[in-house]
């Protein structure tokens, strides 16, 4: 892999690995890939100093397509893996990426607890309200009356999960919603998310054109939030509960300090640990 030269600005395309994505033509995730490379370039984070961590799903393929360090782990555990990496290596820029199934269903417990723990990382969820990779089942964010899921032919009949509300209640420090169609706008939000200390959640509505073709319409439905980001959780909760999931932008910016245990040794020799066992 060629390292970008130290003086010239690193261009967005230099963050691409060159591996050809497996995604269907028109998939929203292409746009997200572009936004991530623009954000990394915007912040001039050197590829060797960033790590993109994911689970399993179409969206979770992201790390392979980037020239940074990456980890494509198992389904649902990206946030746990990313937390371990960030705690061990606070110097790195750590970004977790994945889908709504990966993050909110099988990985739901880690989602809540990572919001709570608040490590300094960014979590980008490509929400398409469906399981793309396994060919079109309902996900936690699918609306109850969507009848095309083969395992739930009459619709799920259950209320969708509200990731941003849960994130807020669990203690996430930065909450935003974006559209994959707005490449530059999304890149700007990701830059802010990376810059902001603590755990930043960026939900990107990213159409699955194969199993939810109607989501192509999202680009006309999503609108920038008419208000600025709040740092008042009560106000944020009210807005998130009433905006029908269609307002984009940075919606909440908190000020909790990030979780980062110190890694400074207090003794110079491991052999000193022996002392407590000596008679």
């Amino acid at each position, binding site marked *: 892999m060629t390292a970008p030269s130290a003086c010239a600005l690193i261009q967005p395309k230099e963050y691409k690995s060159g591996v050809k994505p497996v995604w269907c033509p028109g998939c929203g995730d292409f746009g997200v890939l572009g936004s991530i490379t623009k954000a990394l370039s915007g912040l001039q984070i050197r590829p060797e100093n960033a790590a993109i961590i994911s689970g399993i799903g179409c969206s979770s393929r992201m790390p392979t397509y980037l020239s940074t360090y990456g980890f494509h782990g198992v389904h649902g555990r990206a946030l746990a893996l990313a937390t371990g990496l960030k705690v061990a290596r606070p110097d790195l820029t750590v970004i977790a990426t994945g889908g709504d199934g990966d993050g909110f269903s099988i990985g739901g417990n*880690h989602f809540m607890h990572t919001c709570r723990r608040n490590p300094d990382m960014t979590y980008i969820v490509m929400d398409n309200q469906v399981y793309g990779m396994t060919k079109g089942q309902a996900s936690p964010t699918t609306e109850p009356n969507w009848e095309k899921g083969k395992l739930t032919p009459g619709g799920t009949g259950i209320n969708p999960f509200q990731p941003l509300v849960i994130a807020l209640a669990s203690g996430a420090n930065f909450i935003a919603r974006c559209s994959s169609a707005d490449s530059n706008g999304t890149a700007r939000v990701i830059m802010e998310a990376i810059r902001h200390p603590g755990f930043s959640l960026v939900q990107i509505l990213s159409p699955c054109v194969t199993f939810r073709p109607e989501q192509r319409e999202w680009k006309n439905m999503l609108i920038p939030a008419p208000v600025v980001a709040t740092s008042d959780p009560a106000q944020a909760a009210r807005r998130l509960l009433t905006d029908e999931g269609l307002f984009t932008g940075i919606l909440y910016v908190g000020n909790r300090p990030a979780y980062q245990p110190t890694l400074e040794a207090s003794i110079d020799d491991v052999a000193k640990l022996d002392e407590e066992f000596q008679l």
Partner: protein
Amino acid sequence: MSRRNLSIALTGSGGSGVMTTGNMLLEAAAEAGWYGFMGRSAGPQIRGGEAAALIRVSSQPIESPDDNFDLVLAIDPGSMGRFVAEIPLRTDSLIISDSEGGRRSSSLPDTPAQLLDLPMKKLAKTVKGGRPNMIALGAIAKVIGLAEASIYSILENMLKSKGPDALKASWACVQAGFAAAQDLPTLKGPPITTGSSRERWSFTGNEAAGLGAVRGGIRFVAAYPITPATEVLEWLAGSLPKVGGVLVQAEDELASINQIIGASFGGKPALTATSGPGLALMTESIGLAVCSEVPVVVLDVMRCGPSTGIATKSEQSDLSIALNGLHGDAPHLVLAPTSVTDCVLTTQWAVHLAETLQTAAIVLSDQSLGQTRAIVNRPADIAFMAKRLVPEQFDEVYNRYAVGVTGVSPMSVPGQAGGQYTADGLEHTVAGAPSSLPGDHLAQLEKRERKITAFEYGQHWAELEGRGSTAVITWGSTTGPVREALMRLRETGEHVRLIAMRLLAPERPEEMAAALDGVEQLLVVEQSHSKQFYRYLRAAYDLPADTRVFNRPGPLPFRPYEIIEQLAEWSAQS
């Protein structure tokens, strides 16, 4: 007449303080220059259930429970009933109890042993703030020949935080117990040698495993609490920060294992500790570590299974899941310590091997090692350190998963320019790109297998002792009783070999063939109901035609005489 060994059980119910008393007794034994250990047995109650401290002291280093107990001190008589199976007695064993000590209707179980009465409760009442367990401590000290004064320094040390009144009351009780035991028979312990030495240590197997981990280079631990592994974590939580490491209490075991994979990917040697239920949850991700070639160590302190089983008691029944529980073809390391002291070496070696071979190592300790506190000789310093092969410079193209000769390929660390790659649980090319091609799959499977099978593990794969055409093969905590049984036989001129396996995976066919050379009769000893170890040996190795198995489930430990009996029965038949 003094004895080389003494086994003493203390039982009590509901906050009677048997564990504290037992720890004090063990400390006093250490002061007297003795070796020994204290195991613990407890019921399911969180607080206040019956508990037993099972102690053995000796003039020599010891690892095995004896055949039976010489002395039982039942602080309240009803508490002993729960432990009859765990406290075998002879007709000349002594039971000291308090006929007025218990609640209504609590009485001693039927027993062949001699019963002696000591009014511990009444005596404790004569001291302000006095407690029967301290009366018991004084009485035991008298019976086994420890000086009264030697207990004082222990009390002083252990009650430091409780203030002068507590010390005064306890000391008065110890003196009262000592005086009241004047008329009891004595069971004199080993000769007393004074002057404690830094060459002898006191620790539990769980602390020993923690120490081995840190010595080996572990600097990141993530874990979720579970009996009987929690003390490993407690020790690490206090000790890791001193050496610049960190322990994270994770939300569950799925998080623990993935956090340590993340930390290790970032270059920090990482470990988690758990027990059977947690290991079961982790298996998918242990496979991820194997496939993505990220070193991790998983310490499983086994307890009785399946399911929640008996959470507080020991069994060797996670062997099969540790060996075979990963989906797909996922070669990894499985190791097991053979004694409390060996928890240091085996854990440290596991860290070294996992890091050297870039794979997952599962270490199988168990409750009887982990929660036993032992007085031992200082564990030897060994040179096993985490030493990962990290590239120093990069070619135009960095192939993280290059196949190479040894199968171990240089692993870059995030931050190294030019070393970027994506670690992947998907099958991949040498460069790390996802691949579903049969050729890539085969090449990577062979790489991951070869790096661990072709490695030279040296002498530590097993402990081999003795000679003769009969051998006993065992592993883990059952090594203690087997070793003692064979030592006793040796004293009578009978020679039986010991093979105690430390490295259970990968298989070592050549080393095993050499160890079994000339063996005609092989006895397999293991603590599992379904003969997991025996089945594994049958599948992996060429065993003598005359191979038998002596197995039983936990929690009852093997006792040396049982192994001697098995061998005697066998030779009588043939």
